[in-house]
């Protein structure tokens, strides 16, 4: 009886799954067109899954092994089950025992995996979604156990007539449950949807360059994509869920609701009304139409679930009242990319948030807080503070900085950033100038020709102002010749390095070598051009700026500089790619969405936990945010300041120029040999 029942069950489940898949694909195709290489994407998908996705999942070893057993077991069991029970190959003489045996193995592995899934679901951490996800381990067990038991008679391990008809029917019923969850639920919106949408999302990802290839690592691909402002018909950002490109919608649908983003999000931790996981789920709700009442995870802090609803072609943010998402949710984001870094499904949260912000700013004209004022200042004075652009160099009146306009060509163009108007950052800049002079670097500055890089305007959604600033900066920069740009502002660094390139034209090549000052100082030290006195201070920790670390992958150089200074960094629990944001990015201090606590306060608590007396930073925003913390236990100093303080002159007798006979000191390893300067 089972021989006739099983194929019917299996193939009807598959047929339903195909119907569901077509429906799901039609949901995604509501989105705008995007240029995607479909075939190449599909071909690259297995590698993206096995290498890149696994690289993220493997940060949690137990969960990674659990997933390998469960997912691997399921994929193998599903294929083998179709062969053995669906097509009846299990009874064939030659193949039967092999296929059946493999099926037993696969379903057993899946069962073991699902036991671990069940274990994690017994006391699930707050970041995990509940609701239908709580039944998933049972469904996995139902599927794997029933397949295992139903395969036993096929192989003849148990005689075909074992048990009663009732037992066989009961088993078949359990199998129906399992099949329903695994095949039907996969395309009709159950928890297993993540497997179907996730696989296609990896194949058709909007940033294919993110992924590694056989040739090497993927690049980080963190620059925002430009809007076409010349075409009056091109939409300015995203108003409705269907304004996202289809592969963005597909990406939202891939979310597995693991909540790793939620755990990493600084705004969520500060009690601001943002939860990246909920935001992605809201986009899924909007794409299909409906309300968020069925969402079973942590809500946006302070916003109960069930009050928001949307449709694919309805607004995401209402001008008045509520729609799918409230504007303050979008403005809470600091664009720190912690969510993107943690996401095992490679979802691009920050892109989506900026897309929606663009609409709010460019079409609604509704940038909250001081946003409108800052944007007006950027338009009128090329800096966010509204300062006279002619006073850019006032801070350096006594430094006699060479202007590139007078020289035309230098080795290093020092990009100062808007920190020139900030008295705190002026100290950093002075320190950096001292360091460059000590190393004998041939450098110059743009002086009053420099403008804001456009970073803040872009993160606030004002693509028009960003492009206006960027194009004028590109035109200025292209007049001069230099080998590289050095800046102490990671935001300018990121924009110059990763976001200007797209805006350069045939006349202007906007791809330069750009270095953060920590990278450049590390290079100077390694070349033996800097010499430091030994560190006499206390414990030091280092705070990774988001735009240097997660955006540009530079974790090592600042640490190498600190090591060269003789400082042993007492790492915070959240450092490196998991560094917690200072709260200063993405225009968050400008829009200033209230929460329960402040992000920089939490970060200074992280610093306190290390017992450090000093926190080294490499970003003017971080300096400002962390220094604004009341009753801080640690002093905040930029790496350039620490280096400038430790500078000593070249030890006597080692020659004058940089090509001295002394072998260059290695930044990693040995402590630099020091001598007192006697004369």
């Amino acid at each position, binding site marked *: 009886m089972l021989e006739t029942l099983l194929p019917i069950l299996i193939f009807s489940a598959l047929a339903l799954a195909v119907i569901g898949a077509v429906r799901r694909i039609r949901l995604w195709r509501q989105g705008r067109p995007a240029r995607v290489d479909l075939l190449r994407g599909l071909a690259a998908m297995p590698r993206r899954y096995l290498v890149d996705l696994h690289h993220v999942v493997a940060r949690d070893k137990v969960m990674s092994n659990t997933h390998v057993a469960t997912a691997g077991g399921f994929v193998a069991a599903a294929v083998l089950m179709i062969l053995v029970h669906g097509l009846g190959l299990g009874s064939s003489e030659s193949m039967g025992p092999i296929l059946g045996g493999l099926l037993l193995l696969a379903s057993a592995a899946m069962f073991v995996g699902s036991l671990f899934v069940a274990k994690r679901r017994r006391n699930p951490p707050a970041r995990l979604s509940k609701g239908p996800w709580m039944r998933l381990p049972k469904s996995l067990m139902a599927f794997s156990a029933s397949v295992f038991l139903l395969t036993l008679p096929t192989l003849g391990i148990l005689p075909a007539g074992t048990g009663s008809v009732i037992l066989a029917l009961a088993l078949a019923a359990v199998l129906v449950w399992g099949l329903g969850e695994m095949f039907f639920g996969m395309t009709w919106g159950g928890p297993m949807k993540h497997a179907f949408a996730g696989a296609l999302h990896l194949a058709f990802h909007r940033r294919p360059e993110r992924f590694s290839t056989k040739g090497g690592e993927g690049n980080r691909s963190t620059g925002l994509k430009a809007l076409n402002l010349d075409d009056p018909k091109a939409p*300015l950002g995203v108003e409705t869920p269907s304004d996202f490109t289809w592969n963005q919608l597909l990406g939202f649908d891939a979310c597995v609701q693991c909540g790793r983003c939620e755990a990493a999000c600084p705004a969520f931790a500060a009690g601001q009304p943002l939860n990246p996981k909920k935001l992605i789920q809201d986009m899924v709700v909007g794409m299909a139409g409906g309300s968020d009442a069925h969402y079973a995870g942590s809500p946006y802090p302070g916003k109960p679930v069930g009050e928001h609803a949307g449709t694919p072609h309805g607004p995401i943010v209402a001008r008045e009242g509520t729609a799918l998402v409230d504007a303050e949710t979008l403005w809470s984001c600091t664009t720190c990319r912690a969510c993107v870094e943690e996401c095992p499904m490679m979802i691009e949260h920050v892109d989506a948030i900026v897309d929606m912000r663009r609409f709010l*700013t*460019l*079409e609604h*004209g509704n940038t909250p807080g001081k946003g409108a004022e800052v944007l*007006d200042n950027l338009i009128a*004075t090329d800096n966010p503070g*509204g300062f*006279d652009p002619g006073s850019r160099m006032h801070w350096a009146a006594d430094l006699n900085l060479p202007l590139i306009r007078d020289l035309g060509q230098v080795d290093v163009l020092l990009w100062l950033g808007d920190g020139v108007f900030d008295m705190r950052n002026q100290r950093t800049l002075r320190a950096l100038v001292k360091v460059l002079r000590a190393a004998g670097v041939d450098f110059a500055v743009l002086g009053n020709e420099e403008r804001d890089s456009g970073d803040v305007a872009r993160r606030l959604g004002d*693509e028009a102002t960003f492009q206006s600033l960027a194009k004028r900066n590109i035109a200025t920069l292209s007049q001069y010749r230099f080998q590289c740009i050095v800046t102490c502002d990671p935001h300018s660094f990121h924009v110059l390095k990763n976001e200007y390139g797209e805006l350069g034209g045939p006349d202007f090549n906007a791809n330069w070598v750009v270095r953060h000052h920590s990278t450049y100082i590390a290079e100077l030290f390694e070349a033996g051009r800097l010499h430091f006195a030994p560190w006499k201070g206390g414990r030091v920790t280092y705070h990774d700026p988001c735009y240097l670390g997660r955006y540009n992958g530079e974790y090592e150089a600042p640490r190498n500089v600190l090591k060269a200074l003789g400082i042993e960094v007492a790492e915070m629990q959240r450092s490196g790619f998991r560094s917690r944001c200072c709260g200063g990015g993405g225009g968050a201090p400008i829009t200033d969405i209230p929460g329960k606590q402040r992000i920089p306060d939490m970060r200074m608590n992280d610093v306190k936990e290390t017992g450090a007396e000093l926190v080294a930073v490499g970003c003017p925003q971080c300096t400002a945010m962390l220094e604004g913390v009341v009753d801080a236990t640690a002093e905040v100093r930029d790496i350039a300041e620490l280096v400038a303080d430790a500078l000593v002159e070249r030890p006597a007798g080692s020659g004058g120029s940089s090509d001295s006979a002394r072998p260059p000191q290695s930044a990693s390893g040995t402590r630099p040999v020091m001598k007192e300067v006697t004369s």
Partner: protein
Amino acid sequence: MRPDAQTTGARNTGAQSTSAQQDGALEVAVLVSVGRHPVTGRARRADQDARGVELALSLAGARISLLHAGALDEESESALRGYLGMGFPALTLVEQLPGADVIPALADRLSAARPQLVIAGERAEQGEGSGMLPYLLAERLGWPLVGGLAAVEKVENGVATLLQALPRGQRRRLQVRLPAIVTVDAAAAAARQSAFGPAQRGEIEAESAAVEWDEAQPEWNVTPARKRPKRLKIVKAASARDRFKAAAAKAEGGSGQVLTDVTPEQGAEAIFKLLKDEGVLR
């Protein structure tokens, strides 16, 4: 303060209430100019005019038209689009050459369009900037004018209830029969953000108009404005509390004296003594 003080337009016959009133919508024209940023001098939407537009937008059921008299070039276009970005599909440009007196053209346009309420800023941010334009327009049209508005509270039966801003945050409620010209100053609500999308899509509808030259202006000698010297405020405070009090204190004429029933000689003497005491005369 006189609540509900009545300002009546002396020359307003009241017979000018227009046909536009019949469909219930309040016709409002806002005069907008090309502003000049105080720091960089770049063209922008003028602050007070933008506040005027914001005031118009606060009127329920108003039909708002934006009106600019001047020349259209790259700079002025970007500034005018700043007003469109506040959410308008179009702006009317009465074409005038540089050096023209825009008042006749504006007056012709207004008397033809017959808006009930005309809103303007106190003074332009560039050019003559005398602040005379609304007055000269009101004189030409024979409409009442109210200056320094903070808000329009309501418009009923051809009468507008206005809130006029006085120094130190005081307000005076006035009623004026429409049509009228009102000007707003910095006490009015700040203008909303100008959005790029509507600003780019908005139409600038140019209308040609007769040009009358401003004959007085070419004879003038224009020099950059100089900052007036400011009296140094010397705070002799020993404690933070004293410094705070000094910073928060209102300007007070502490040592002043009121002279009444004195001869011109005594008055002149008192002024002379004060100037000597203050070190203006030595």
